[in-house]
């Protein structure tokens, strides 16, 4: 999940921003968002039976 989030965040950030500083900021926010939502969804779905 971390590798996937990192790859997608980097590509999105570079696509959506032109300045390296903005790219870094957006990439960090996207990465944190992906990982955070991934963990949250994992916990929310945990009680559900397969």
């Amino acid at each position, binding site marked *: 999940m971390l*590798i*996937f989030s990192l*790859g*997608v965040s*980097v*590509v999105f950030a*570079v*696509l959506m921003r*032109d300045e*390296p500083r903005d790219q870094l900021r957006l990439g960090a926010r996207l990465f944190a968002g992906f990982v955070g939502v991934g963990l949250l969804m994992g916990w929310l779905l945990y009680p559900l039976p397969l």
Partner: protein
Amino acid sequence: MPATAAGRAQAPVSPLLICLAAWIVPGAGHLWLGRRQKGLVFLLVPTLMFAFGLWLEGRLFPFEPSQPLVALAALADLGIGLPYLLARALGAGAGRVVALTYEYGNTFVIVAGLLNVLVVLDAFDTATGRK
């Protein structure tokens, strides 16, 4: 902001040609347009994600019109361009359904292709002066 020196220098090149290059080699469109930093990132990241997906025993889906979801996955796989064609030629991407990492591999391969489609669209926007 189309008024960059790189944008002006590359104006005679057809945007469709740029898109074709960007599809075949991820990042090539941006490199052609003089966007070196973006081009290198787009060359490395989707290609590595694609290779990682194959390493995780993901599958390159076949074009099966009778199975719409499989056909869509095949289209997404194809989005990465040359790496897909090379993997096909080398017999990679058979996928092993019983592998623990099979679905993770599929996700990496599919998303790498879709990311490159976004990169191609961005190259088109850049080539036509929309960005």
